[in-house]
């Protein structure tokens, strides 16, 4: 279960919309499943079908999380034109252990935000609770 404050949930969608049609990506930080920080990051692929993070930015965000006493809870990205479920590529590249995969889809009439746990190629939906 991921608990996401409304403001961060809204920012996930705002980021996906701002980068459209390119896939947006970033990290969510927090403690024990409770998200308290969002880090918008650059998609070095600048593609509407792929994302890749810049390693330098990854290291900088992880150190910032550590400095704030937070852990990396999720890696998020958008699917500008496809549903909020992991693609084959998402499954294959879900390499960081213990981290959720959050996908923001803009394919429908309304944005759709879903979370998954992916390990060894197995995808499990993860509930999201939005808190005010």
């Amino acid at each position: 279960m991921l608990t996401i404050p409304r403001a961060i949930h809204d920012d996930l969608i705002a980021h996906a919309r701002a980068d459209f049609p390119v896939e947006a990506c970033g990290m969510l930080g927090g403690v024990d499943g409770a998200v308290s920080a969002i880090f918008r990051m650059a998609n070095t692929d600048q593609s509407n079908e792929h994302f890749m993070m810049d390693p330098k930015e990854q290291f900088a965000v992880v150190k910032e999380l550590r400095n704030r006493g937070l852990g990396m809870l999720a890696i998020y990205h958008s699917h500008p034109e496809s549903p909020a479920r992991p693609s084959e590529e998402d499954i294959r590249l879900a390499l960081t252990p213990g981290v959720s995969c959050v996908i923001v889809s803009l394919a429908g009439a309304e944005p759709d935000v879903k979370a998954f746990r992916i390990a060894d190629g197995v995808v499990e939906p993860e509930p999201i609770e939005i808190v005010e």
Partner: protein
Amino acid sequence: MNLTVNGKPSTIDGSERLNVTGLLAALKVAQAAYVTVELNGEVLEREAFDATIVKDGDAVEFLYFMGGGSAAFPQSRR
């Protein structure tokens, strides 16, 4: 050898010269082929892992490649 690994003190046993590839093995890092390494603040090219020797007091960070995307959906259900 005493290192700082992902912000935490870490002691690596053995006195032989250890390169970054060997360090990842010593740390039992799974899927090391997908890991990016930063040594003392500098991101290393993967090609440099074998030639880069870690020294006592070094700060090492490693992260997994982070990427993906909406291409190639299973069962063509896009």
